[in-house]
């Protein structure tokens, strides 16, 4: 009897000790991960499913919420306290060849409340590094700072970087001279330079390209979409342009001179004309820059914000005064702002300033620019026709640039093969299909390029456990990026661990990607070291931390 009592007490004591030790660690709630639908974003959807699977193996209960883009944007932008994790992407644009925009806007604490830093990353050390690189003009010193920024992010893992997609484009070798196609770093052969240099070799003198999206607007003061942008790039000139190597080169400007750290004088090329025949003047240039900060072009405002004054020194010299020095000014501003005719837009903007609408609501019937192509006509939802501006200083070799709207990916490929299109600029299908078609049909040339843009998974740093860097590092380490590249992107992507793409060779911190250790065991040991319990089973917080956001 005494023995039995002893044993019973011992068991009860042991059980209560065990119970209290387990109860001491609070289980982590079910977390929700947002994704776009499979039909709209098959790669994103697939990647999210694979990642959720790996996280469940660690012991995290993940539920994937699929929703259309507008709903997702609403949650992520306007309800920053409510979501846990989301898939997201940043598009590659020529102006993003300079890493400043991405490194600053995505992670600086000033953009956490309303801007692109919707994850709520607050790191004073990072802020300092990224502020300094902005004003460091010496390229090597600046590079060291940009590398440091990437190292900080790799250690903190505020975002789980996935891949830089490899976009594949194709064209008809029988119609165009292959050697005239320009592969722009981080952008691909679907580049501005191609549209100028592409030389027809036979009877077909038009460049016929496709897009699966509707063109929303052709407006130099409105960034309305990727496809729309191709058109405004061709219709309007800029002072500088991002070259095929990713560096700014003079375009409407002949040259520039940095008078001091915050003053730059730009000399306008002479002999330029608007499409209506009137000459392009320094007043037009000054007007174009002032228009961005006048309040009617909100999407361009951030790029003109740093300009405190624009003065016209002589017939063809414009002087920009900046508030603070800016190392990326030429790429992110001078190569971004479209030159617009003052005689067309001044009355329009004056009228708009009295109304609620801004310049984004205004659509010119015949957009007037000074660019290499002129506007001819727009058949809604069907095609847009531009013709070469033969008087331009760098006139295109082709006669016309015709954009056809083709929402069906298979049809687009078929049209390339049949000749209805001669340059495939938008292919939403499996790139392998494109390669196979090119092999069968010897006329096609396919070129794929690593994009400046990237896909990633964002953690909401305002909500535990995502406020713990160790937890984020573990989640990120648990997924081998090769799995994402192969299974979700069908090998048309490169693994990423930095927002600066390998396409930007000078700025990319390759060690940060190469030295990134991944694996389930790596992830689990990170979690254990950080004090998390239930690893591999049902994750619990470290001792003393309780779940505050339960369902």
């Amino acid at each position, binding site marked *: 009897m005494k023995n039995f009592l002893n044993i019973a007490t011992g068991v009860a004591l042991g059980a209560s000790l065990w119970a209290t030790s387990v109860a001491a660690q609070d289980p982590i709630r079910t977390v929700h991960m947002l994704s776009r639908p499979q039909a709209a974003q098959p790669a994103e959807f697939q990647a999210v499913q694979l990642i959720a699977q790996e996280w469940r193996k660690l012991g995290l209960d993940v539920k994937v919420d699929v929703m259309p883009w507008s709903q997702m944007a609403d949650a992520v932008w306007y309800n920053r306290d409510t979501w846990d994790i989301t898939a997201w992407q940043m598009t590659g644009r020529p102006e993003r060849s300079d890493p400043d925009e991405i490194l600053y806007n995505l992670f600086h604490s000033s953009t956490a409340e309303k801007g692109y830093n919707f994850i709520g990353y607050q790191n004073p050390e990072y802020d300092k590094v990224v502020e300094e690189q902005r004003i460091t003009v010496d390229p090597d010193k600046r590079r060291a700072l940009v590398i440091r920024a990437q190292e900080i992010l790799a250690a903190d893992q505020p975002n789980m970087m996935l891949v830089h997609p490899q976009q594949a484009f194709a064209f008809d070798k029988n119609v165009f001279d292959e050697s005239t196609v320009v592969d722009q770093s981080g952008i691909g052969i679907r580049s501005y330079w191609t549209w100028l240099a592409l030389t027809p070799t036979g009877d077909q003198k038009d460049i016929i390209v496709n897009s699966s999206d509707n063109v929303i607007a052709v407006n130099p003061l409105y960034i309305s979409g990727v496809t729309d942008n191709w058109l405004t790039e061709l219709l309007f000139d800029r002072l500088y342009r991002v070259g095929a190597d990713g560096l700014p080169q003079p375009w409407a400007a002949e040259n520039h001179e940095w008078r001091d750290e915050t003053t730059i004088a730009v000399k306008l090329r002479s002999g330029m004309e608007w499409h209506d025949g009137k000459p392009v003047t320094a007043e037009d240039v000054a007007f174009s820059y002032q228009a961005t900060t006048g309040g009617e072009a909100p999407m361009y405002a951030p790029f003109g914000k740093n300009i405190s004054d624009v003065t016209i020194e002589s017939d063809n010299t414009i002087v920009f005064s900046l508030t603070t020095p800016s190392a990326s000014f030429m790429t992110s501003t001078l190569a971004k702002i479209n030159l617009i005719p003052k005689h067309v837009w001044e009355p329009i903007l004056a009228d708009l300033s009295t109304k609620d609408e801004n310049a984004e609501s205004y659509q010119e019937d015949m957009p007037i620019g000074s660019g290499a192509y002129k506007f001819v006509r727009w058949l809604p939802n*069907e095609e847009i026709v531009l013709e070469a501006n033969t008087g331009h200083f760098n006139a295109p070799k082709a006669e016309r640039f015709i954009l056809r709207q083709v929402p069906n990916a298979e049809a687009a490929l*078929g049209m390339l093969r049949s000749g209805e299109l001669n340059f495939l600029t938008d292919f939403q299908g499996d790139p392998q299909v494109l390669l196979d078609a090119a092999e069968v049909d010897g006329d096609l040339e396919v070129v794929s390029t690593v994009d400046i843009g990237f896909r990633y998974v964002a953690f909401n740093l305002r909500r535990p456990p995502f406020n713990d860097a160790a937890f984020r590092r573990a989640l990120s380490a648990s997924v081998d990026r090769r799995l994402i590249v192969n299974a979700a992107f069908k090998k048309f992507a490169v693994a990423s661990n930095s927002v600066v793409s390998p396409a930007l060779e000078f700025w990319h911190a390759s060690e940060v990607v190469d030295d990134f250790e991944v694996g389930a065991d790596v992830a689990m040991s990170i979690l254990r070291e950080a004090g998390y319990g239930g690893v591999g089973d049902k994750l619990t917080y470290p001792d003393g931390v309780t779940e505050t956001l339960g369902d």
Partner: protein
Amino acid sequence: MSTLKPILIRTLQLVLVLWAVVTILFLMFRLMPGNPLAAYIDPTFTAEQQEALIRQFGLDKSLLQQYFTYLINLLQGELGYSFRYRTPVADRIWLLLPNTLILTFSSLIVAYAFGIFAGAFLAWKRGSRTEAAALPVVLATRAMPEFWLGMVLLAIFSFSLGWFPAGGTRSAGTHYESLWQLYTSANFLSHLALPMLTLAIYSQGLPLLLMRSNMLDVMNEDFVTMARIKGLSPYAVVIRHGARNAMLPVMTSFAISVGYQLQGNVVVETVFSWPGLGRELVSAVSAADYPLAQGAFLMIAVVVIIMNLVADLLYTLLDPRISYA
């Protein structure tokens, strides 16, 4: 005088139906989850600019106020401004509606013309092997998904044989001075051929089977037996006496089919890159562009309602046995 009252009642019913459709449309979009502002307001906007946009969209007012503004505008023929394009909804719809109507009506006319003759023919061939072979084929055409049919036709007639183009209403860069010039050009007709054929193949099942079934009934009627006894030719019996009567329900189903056809339009317009209202409607809905989606939906609803009215009127006209009351 006695015909005026039913017409008045009919018109009132029409207005009531339209009002119900308009109200349901209005509520439907606003009850969908998600905030259209998220899609249209760039995060770099200042607070002032965001508010200006909200005011421009009319989203700062209460739901009831928005509803009455919407109704009042509608009565004046004002369909509002598209959130996405920032241009008047009406302009966009008028540009795209003709493309959809041409596709719908041309495919239905072909489907019905074929269906009526084929249906009569199959009724004539009752019990034969032709009928046994043909019926499953007809049923299959009705069962297959339109987009699949479209893709198959595209693969065969466009990509393999190269007989027809694969998308759009005309070849790249071609210009026509007027719509009439466009619609009567060989270029346009060759672009219309495949999408029209897709919809026609899908739609012909209904008139064919309906016609056949009606013919079988009609052929058993007394007046047909009488015609035979009179010694009339097979043509006179089958076509003049039989088919003309069997056709009545089929004609009214034509009018109603317009409504069903418009659903299929969306899919065919996407497969063949046909710039029509169906595709625009779907893209407006997924982009949370309320005014454009409402406008497009409403236009389609109006067409359907009018065609239903036409169906009613047609029936009374064609069949002297039916009076308006």
